[in-house]
C-alpha cells in the first residue's frame, strides 16, 4: 500500500460524494420553486438507498469474482472481509478505500437520472426504482466494464471513469423513464422556467470540482495518469462550456449562464471515458464536440415530445457517446496504454462503438421494464392536483422558500 495513493483515493471518494449534492443543486435550481425540495430529495435519497443496496450485495456482484463474464459472486455481501489491507484487490490502496470509491460512482449514477423525471414522479416509485436499478442495471454494467466482465476483458472496450457505466447508462435509462412517465402538465405550452439559476450555477461548480475526483481518482493512485486525467478533464470542460455559449450566441443572439453551466457538464461527461487515455489537444477536440453536439441535441426532445425535463439525454447520453466513441480515435498508448484509430488501431473504434450499443440496449430494456412494472403496481406519477400544487407540498409537506417570515 502507498500512503500517497491512499490519500488521493480517499480525497477522490470524498470529491465524488460531493458531486451528488452538487448535482442536486444543479437540478434543483432548474425546476420551479414549488418542486425544488422534491428534486433535491430525489438526488440525496440516492446516497441513502444505493449505499444500502451496495453494502448488501451490489458491490459484491460488481467486483467480487466473475461468473461467465456477466456478473460477480456474493462472497463480499455485507462487505464481509473488506478490510484495512489490500488483500482482495490488487491496488495500492486499502480494499475499503477502493470499495468506497466505487460506492460513490454507484450513488451518483442513478441520481443523474432524476433530472429527466423532474416535477412529476412519485417519491416512493423513485426510491424503489433506484434501489432495484442499482442492482439489476448498474452492478452488472460495472462488472462488465470494470469488474472483470466481458466488455472490459473480452471485447476490450475501454472506459476510464464511466462513459459507459455512468453516463450512457444513466442517459438511456432516463429516456426509458421519460417514455414511461409522459410529459409534465403544460410541457411545451406553459412557461416552465428555472427558479434559481444561482443554485444551478453553484451546483455546476461543485460538479466540476468533484469531477476531478471522479476522473483523476479513476487512476486509483496519485500518479502521472491521474495528473493527465485531471488536465484533460479541465480542458474538455472549459472548451465545451465556451463552445456551448458560442453556439447560443450564434443561434439565439445571447450567451447564457445556464448554457455555460450546461456546456461545462457536457464537456465533463464527454471526457470521462477518455480522460486517462488521451492528451491535452485531444481533450480540446472532445470538449468542442461535446459543447456543440449536446447543444444541438437539446432540440430533439421537442421534436419527439419527450419531456426529458432537465436534458439528461442531451447531456449525459449524447455526451457519453461522444466521449466513448472519440476515445476510439484519440487514445494514445503512451498515455493510457491503448491506441485509437488515429494512432494506428482502428479496431479500438469498433470496440468502443460495440460497447456503446451493448450498454444502450441493455440499460434501456431493463430500465423500461422496471418502470413499467412500477407503473402497473404502485404507479409512477403523482396526481394532477399534486403536480399543480407542487411536489414539495404534496409529497413532502414542506416549502422550499419562505422569504416573508
Amino acid at each position: 500500500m502507498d500512503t500517497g495513493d491512499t490519500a488521493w483515493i480517499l480525497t477522490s471518494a470524498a470529491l465524488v460524494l460531493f458531486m451528488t449534492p452538487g448535482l442536486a443543486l444543479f437540478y434543483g435550481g432548474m425546476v420551479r420553486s414549488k418542486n425544488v425540495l422534491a428534486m433535491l430529495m430525489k438526488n440525496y435519497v440516492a446516497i441513502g438507498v444505493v449505499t444500502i443496496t451496495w453494502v448488501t450485495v451490489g458491490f459484491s456482484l460488481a467486483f467480487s469474482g466473475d461468473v461467465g463474464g456477466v456478473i460477480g459472486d456474493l462472497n463480499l455481501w455485507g462487505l464481509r472481509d473488506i478490510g484495512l489491507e489490500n488483500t482482495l484487490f490488487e491496488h495500492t490502496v486499502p480494499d475499503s478505500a477502493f470499495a468506497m470509491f466505487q460506492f460513490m460512482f454507484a450513488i451518483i449514477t442513478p441520481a443523474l437520472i432524476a433530472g429527466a423525471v423532474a416535477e412529476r414522479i412519485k417519491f416512493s416509485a423513485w426510491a424503489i426504482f433506484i434501489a432495484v436499478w442499482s442492482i439489476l442495471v448498474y452492478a452488472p454494467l460495472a462488472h462488465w466494464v470494470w469488474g472483470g466482465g466481458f466488455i472490459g476483458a473480452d471485447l476490450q472496450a475501454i472506459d476510464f471513469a464511466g462513459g459507459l457505466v455512468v453516463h450512457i447508462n444513466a442517459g438511456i435509462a432516463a429516456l426509458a423513464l421519460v417514455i414511461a412517465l409522459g410529459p409534465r402538465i403544460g410541457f411545451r405550452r406553459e412557461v416552465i422556467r428555472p427558479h434559481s439559476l444561482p443554485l444551478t450555477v453553484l451546483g455546476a461548480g461543485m460538479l466540476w470540482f468533484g469531477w476531478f475526483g471522479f476522473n483523476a481518482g479513476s487512476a486509483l493512485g496519485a500518479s502521472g495518469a491521474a495528473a493527465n486525467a485531471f488536465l484533460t478533464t479541465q480542458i474538455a470542460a472549459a472548451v465545451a462550456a465556451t463552445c456551448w455559449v458560442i453556439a447560443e450566441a450564434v443561434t439565439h443572439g445571447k450567451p447564457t449562464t445556464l448554457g455555460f453551466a450546461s456546456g461545462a457538464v457536457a464537456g465533463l461527461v464527454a471526457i470521462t471515458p477518455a480522460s486517462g487515455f488521451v492528451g491535452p489537444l485531444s481533450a480540446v477536440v472532445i470538449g468542442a464536440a461535446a459543447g456543440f453536439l449536446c447543444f444541438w441535441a437539446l432540440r430533439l426532445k421537442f421534436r419527439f415530445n419527450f419531456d426529458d425535463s432537465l436534458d439528461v439525454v442531451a447531456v449525459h447520453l449524447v455526451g457519453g457517446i461522444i466521449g466513448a466513441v472519440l476515445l476510439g480515435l484519440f487514445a494514445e498508448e503512451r498515455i493510457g496504454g491503448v491506441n485509437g484509430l488515429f494512432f494506428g488501431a482502428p479496431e479500438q473504434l469498433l470496440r468502443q462503438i460495440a460497447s456503446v450499443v451493448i450498454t444502450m440496449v441493455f440499460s434501456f430494456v431493463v430500465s423500461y421494464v422496471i418502470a413499467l412494472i412500477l407503473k402497473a403496481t404502485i404507479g409512477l406519477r403523482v396526481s394532477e392536483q399534486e403536480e399543480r400544487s407542487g411536489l414539495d407540498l404534496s409529497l413532502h409537506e414542506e416549502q422550499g422558500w419562505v422569504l416573508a417570515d
Partner: protein
Amino acid sequence: MKLIVAYINPFKLDEIRDALKETGVTGLSAGNVQGFGRQAGHTETYRGAEYEVDFVPKVRIEVLVDDTLAPNVISTIEQTARTGSIGDGKIAVLPVEDVIRIRTGERGRDAL
C-alpha cells in the same frame, strides 16, 4: 370607469391575460396574495412539528376599464378562471373617479 379586482388561481394568469387582450383590454396589473376562504390549506411538517397553513397562494389582478367594457371583462375573467373547484376565486367591481396616464397626462377614458 371601474376597477375590476379578481383573486384567481396562479396557473390561470396567462390564459386570462390572453383572453382579456382579445376583449380589448389594454393593460392590467397582477400581484401575489395569500388567500383565505373555503378552500382548504395544507399541512407542513418540519422535524415532527406539524403546522396547518390556511393560506393558499393566489394571484390578484386589477384591470382599470371603461364602464362599457366592464361587463365583458367580468364575464371573460369568470369564464377563463373557472375550473369548477372550490378556490376559483372572486371578482369585485369598484368605482373609479379618474384615471391618468403618467406618460402623457391624458385623463379618463383616454388614459386607458
